[in-house]
């Protein structure tokens, strides 16, 4: 069935574009103010930049998992392909930084797309997709340790390219990452308003019904994975050039994927603005917990359990409710 023969409009399509642009503008303005407050501290700026990188990861994961139900447990690995790939292309092969970032992003996109294509073709379902991608993530981590010549193994490696540019200053990288966050939010928002977003919603709500109305479920799953993986590769790559170093834990399963899951659950799955709220809230909570050492791991675990047990909808709907009550008054 051709795409034009389906002519059901969604509420999102009917809303004016301003309902997307205004929240993004507000989020951008608020986050742009953070360096005024924390700009003096190199450590706090580092935490903030990492927080924004995670916001990018969560937005991407939200598109893949939240929109089309593919449990990609290789968020860190895909970002790592961008990060390690970009650094190796630039430092070891002498390519310009921008070219390296683009190529590394394409590599992550291809790998993510392939994982999705294979899972969809074999109709693996949520759990098996999760296991296959987890296996990929663990293999990637093991490879990083094994290929020490390129990756520096356990200790990680430095990134020489970009050393003398604004990317290594204290504050400019923050705005570079913020630009990515806002760009990704905009892309996700626009996607949701397009036919693709409508198809995502349909196949999330009822896959069989979606298939019966002529949506090529397989195709849209792969689209979502391609878009999300491109975001992951780009964010990982850019982050590494601003940070100047990386190690396997920068992209490890326990260090990235678990945190991304918590952030997404924190913010609400499937919602455009959930990821940014979850990422900011979690970055703050994490910073408070950092002095507690192992207690932080325990808190992570409890948080995961509580979030998925009690607040499966996240805090974004809660904030929405509050907002609507304020407006009603």
């Amino acid at each position, binding site marked *: 069935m051709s795409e034009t023969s389906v002519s059901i409009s969604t509420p999102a399509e009917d809303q004016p574009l301003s309902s997307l642009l205004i929240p993004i503008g507000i989020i951008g303005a608020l986050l742009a103010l953070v360096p005024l407050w924390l700009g003096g501290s190199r450590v706090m700026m580092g935490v903030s930049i990492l927080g924004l990188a995670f916001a990018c990861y969560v937005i991407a994961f939200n598109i893949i998992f939240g929109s089309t139900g593919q449990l990609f447990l290789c968020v860190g690995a895909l970002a790592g392909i961008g990060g390690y790939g970009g650094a190796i292309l630039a430092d070891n092969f002498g390519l310009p930084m921008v070219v390296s970032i683009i190529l590394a992003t394409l590599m992550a996109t291809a790998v993510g797309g392939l994982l999705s294509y294979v899972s969809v073709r074999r109709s*693996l379902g949520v759990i098996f997709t999760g296991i*296959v991608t987890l*296996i990929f993530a663990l*293999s990637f981590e093991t490879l990083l*340790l*094994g290929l020490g010549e390129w990756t520096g193994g356990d200790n990680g490696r430095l990134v020489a390219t970009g050393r003398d540019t604004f990317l290594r200053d204290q504050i400019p990288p923050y705005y570079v990452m913020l630009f990515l966050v806002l760009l990704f939010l905009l892309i996700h928002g626009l996607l949701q308003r397009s036919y693709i977003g409508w198809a995502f919603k349909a196949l999330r709500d009822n896959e069989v019904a979606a298939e019966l109305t002529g949506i090529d479920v397989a195709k849209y799953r792969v689209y979502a994975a391609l878009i999300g993986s491109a975001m992951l590769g780009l964010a990982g790559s850019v982050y590494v050039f601003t940070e100047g170093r990386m190690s396997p834990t920068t992209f490890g399963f326990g260090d990235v994927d678990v945190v991304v899951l918590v952030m997404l659950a924190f913010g609400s799955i499937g919602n455009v603005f959930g990821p940014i709220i979850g990422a900011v809230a979690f970055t703050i909570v994490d910073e408070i917990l950092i002095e507690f050492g192992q207690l932080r791991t325990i808190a992570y675990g*409890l948080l995961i359990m509580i979030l998925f*047990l009690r607040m499966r909808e996240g805090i974004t709907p809660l904030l929405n409710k509050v907002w609507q009550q304020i407006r009603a008054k």
Partner: protein
Amino acid sequence: MIANILDGLVFGLQLGLLATGLTLVYGLGGILNMAYGQIAVIAALVVAFSIEAGVPLLLAIVIGLLAGGLVGLILDQTILRPVYRLHEEPRVLLSLLLTLGLSFVIEGFLIWQFPLDALSIRIPGGTIDILGVPMRTGSLLASGITLVTFAALFLFFRYTSLGMAVRSVIENEEGARLVGVRPNQMLRLILFLSGVLAGLVAVTRSMVTPVDTHAGLSITVFALIVTVVGGLGSVAGAFLAGIILGIINVVAADFIGSYISLIMLLVAAALTILIRPAGLLGVPE
């Protein structure tokens, strides 16, 4: 080469037993227990502390196994309760996420309280020649215990009415319910058994190499790989896959390098999912 294969067998038998605990719970209850490795670590630490407190070795081991089983029962009574209300994929997914959270809680607590503790059981006696290869007594004893356990499991599932009741639930839950088997009780029994098996693996492993506080995640990952290759819910599959993967692991580590060997196992699991999602001995749906 023979030495490699024998070492692989020792490791493979443990992998098989490890996967058995995970695969039974999945096959019976649709629960993927990501805290499985941490249960093994708890059991190992309980044995280690009992020995330190002067409890005789055998009794300490029994206490450790019971502790593992107890954790299984506690899971059944607490965080798995909301999971039981769901079915099919959402059920597996929620169980995976909740036990993943639990694994962080347990691991965080254990590393916080007992960062340097480990269980290492020394078996006296040097080496015994098998097919011309000197094998350590500890490895042989560990393999012996594992084989006996497999035999006992086989007999239990084949010939006792309780074992058959468990199998009936794996085959067809609704049918089992109709003939008077209570799936919930069977699941509780299997969660207990799974905890005991996790403990047993920790104990036999510690006869070959120390099991420390940080071992949880790698135990879970190994169990998951073997479970996937063997077929979810199949004890015989877990046994077979364990032995095959154990040999692959040791041979690959010897010929190529230890980091490749883990990747080989992971690739084996990925290929199994892609080529035969039901696993070696699982029943294709």
